[in-house]
């Protein structure tokens, strides 16, 4: 059924169609509308046989999920940014215990300086946590991928995180095609846990493991993620058969195979890029996009396959490892090094959209033009205000005193500070 609703409401309704049995929640922008709506669905009886609970922190929320999932319930929660960091210890624990929890991450920057707007710093902070991490480009995909996420999590006994850009998707009101219950039931069978806390057949979960078996346990986690590469593709196909839509999968190529210059990106920015390359291609540019829909597992082969004819790759990402650079860029670098068919491709790492800075077609077009002329730097911070940076660097040199950097910059930019000294 076609509906004109926000991304958050779409996801909440899709999650409800998946018949979750336990949902703990804790508010944090920009995911809050999702759990708010689920609360109403449970209260009104539209979502039945579900325990919805307001807990006291994200750490509690993920721990609640751990208990619920270990006891055999289909379990869901959502968070973002600081909330994800606050639950971090439990995030690792959930994957270590192999619990098929599904969580939405309404992607948001991490402070300080505190910032509620979108980027991917939160998702990247858990890139080694052992979760499946999927990214979506649109609200339609967001709801579709949530339905797939439960099936995937339960097939693998692994937690799945669906990353959807905060505000840009969560708060955007768009048209979506909402599936009906019958379709979802056909795709997603009831959850039958492999093992659970059960008084009929007692087992101990979460025992201490020493050096004798730890390596094997960790390797098996890695192996399971590799298995996911196949299952994600299979499920996307199965989904397309039932729902008649292409959603999910490992990667999505928009002219990537047949273009000289190819963007690699994740999430909603792909939409902006699609707009741009439609323009550019009509102007005769040879440019495409590779959208990464699965970040963990990292689909190295699928990526390299799609990039094997490219001459210039522009890896665009909304976060970076401070002191190192682009995270996705370095992973793609590594993948191409290992892939025999790729020779001499130029990879540029572009960092943009940090803390919600608007990503314009104009700025992206400049990147393409530079790449075309062969002088796109290996590392670019898109739309960086060079003046601000230079001024602050000079001040630091002159004053030799320490202090919170953001406040200095703000003062410099003329933002009113509470101290009223400026």
């Amino acid at each position, binding site marked *: 059924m076609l509906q004109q609703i926000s991304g958050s409401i779409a996801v909440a309704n899709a999650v409800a169609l998946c018949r979750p049995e336990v949902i703990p929640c804790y508010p944090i922008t920009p995911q809050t509308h999702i759990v708010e709506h689920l609360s109403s669905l449970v209260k009104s009886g539209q979502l039945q046989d579900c*325990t919805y609970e307001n807990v006291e*922190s994200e750490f509690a929320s993920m721990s609640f999920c751990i*208990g619920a999932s*270990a006891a055999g319930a289909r379990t869901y929660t959502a968070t973002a940014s600081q909330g994800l960091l606050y639950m971090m210890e439990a995030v690792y624990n959930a994957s270590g215990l192999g619990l098929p929890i599904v969580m939405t991450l309404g992607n948001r920057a991490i402070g300080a300086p505190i910032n509620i707007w979108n980027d991917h710093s939160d998702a990247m902070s858990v890139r080694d946590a052992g979760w499946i991490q999927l990214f979506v480009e649109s609200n339609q995909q967001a709801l579709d991928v949530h339905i797939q996420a439960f099936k995937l999590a339960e097939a693998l006994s692994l937690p799945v995180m669906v990353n959807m850009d905060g505000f840009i998707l969560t708060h955007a009101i768009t048209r979506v095609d909402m599936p009906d219950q019958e379709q979802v039931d056909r795709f997603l069978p009831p959850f039958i846990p492999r093992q659970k806390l059960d008084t009929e057949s007692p087992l*101990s*979960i979460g025992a201490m493991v020493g050096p004798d078996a730890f390596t094997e346990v960790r390797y098996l986690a890695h192996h399971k993620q590799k298995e996911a590469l196949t299952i994600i593709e299979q499920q996307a196909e199965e989904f397309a058969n039932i729902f008649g839509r292409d959603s999910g999968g490992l990667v999505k190529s928009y002219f990537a195979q047949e273009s000289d210059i190819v963007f690699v990106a994740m999430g909603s920015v792909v939409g902006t890029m699609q707009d741009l390359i439609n323009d550019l291609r009509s102007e005769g540019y040879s440019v495409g996009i590779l959208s990464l829909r699965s970040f963990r597992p990292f689909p190295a082969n699928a990526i390299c396959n799609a990039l094997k004819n490219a001459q210039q790759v522009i890896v665009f990402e909304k976060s970076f490892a401070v002191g190192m650079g682009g995270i996705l860029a370095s992973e793609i670098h590594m993948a191409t090094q290992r892939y025999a068919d790729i020779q001499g491709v130029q990879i540029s790492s572009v960092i943009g959209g940090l803390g919600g800075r608007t990503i314009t077609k104009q700025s992206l077009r400049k990147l393409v033009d530079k790449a075309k002329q062969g002088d796109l730097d290996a590392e670019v911070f898109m739309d960086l205000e060079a003046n601000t940076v230079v001024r602050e660097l000079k001040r630091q040199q002159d004053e030799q005193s320490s202090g919170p950097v953001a406040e200095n910059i703000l003062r410099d930019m003329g933002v009113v500070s509470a101290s009223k000294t400026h």
Partner: protein
Amino acid sequence: MTQKNTAEQTVKFYQTGTFTVGNRLLDEEFRTVQATEERSNSIDSGHRACQGCGQALGARYALDTAMRVTNNKIIAANATGCLEVFTTPYPETAWSIPWVHSLFGNVASVASGIAATLKAKGDSETRVIAQGGDGGTTDIGFACLSGLFDRNDDVLYICYDNGGYMNTGVQRSSATPGGARTATTMPVGEHPGSSFNTGKFLPAIAMAHEIPYVATASVHDLHDLERKVEKAMSFRGARYIQINVPCPLGWGSLPAHTIKLARMGVESGLVPLFEAEYGELTQSTKIRYQIPVEDYLKAQRRFAHVLKPANVAQLETIRALAEKNIKRYALL
């Protein structure tokens, strides 16, 4: 309330000297659950607890009682700590009940999650128990526990109070008694041992949440412990039991003195035993033979410095604490 196997003893039998409850001197129907042939065994033998570990004893009695009164329908969640480590060295487990360990500070929330699943599935028969040490309870797990109380989730939380972080080598927790030596409060300088802060007396904090049932217990009186667990299981909602469990390693006491020390803690007034329902004190256990606090402290290396003449002020503070407890909980 005198029931088979869980008798709150109407007649107190003590063997002379050790003060040990004489199970065998009792009529069969008054014996502890451990004395029956068909007893359950929540924690099997072969685990790795130290000799004389009060926590191993307390946990076994508490959970066996819960097993009995629920007809073996219990699921337990465990915080990281001695109990978790000594019962589950991979690939072995001592647990004969479904049991899960997640993290150090989240056991209350894990248990709440289990309870949420049972609720969603309409299973009102199976009950949930959360357990942790005093560090996992009063410090790092405090927020989750308070959340559980606030929501009144149907979980019995059992805290095994050995007065410190024992599993990591005896460091101070907010339940470590004032004056006690731990690895992070060594008896050096002007104020030896653990500081005399107000500490956190969690049973009182639990009562402030007005949850259905709060009790303190001690491993020297296993009948009383069993009765309290049974009572706790008769309520729905959040319940809290704190069990005083001597730890020979952390206390610097003899393994053979565990029961005796547990008793002395109570008889000195330092460990008040009571019950409360919905925030109101309903009963406290009278001290039978009051003993001077020194007698209790003397048997533990962690208090050796307190008994030196130079530290008489510390001793006075501890005495005052015992007196305050005696008054507050009407222990005499």
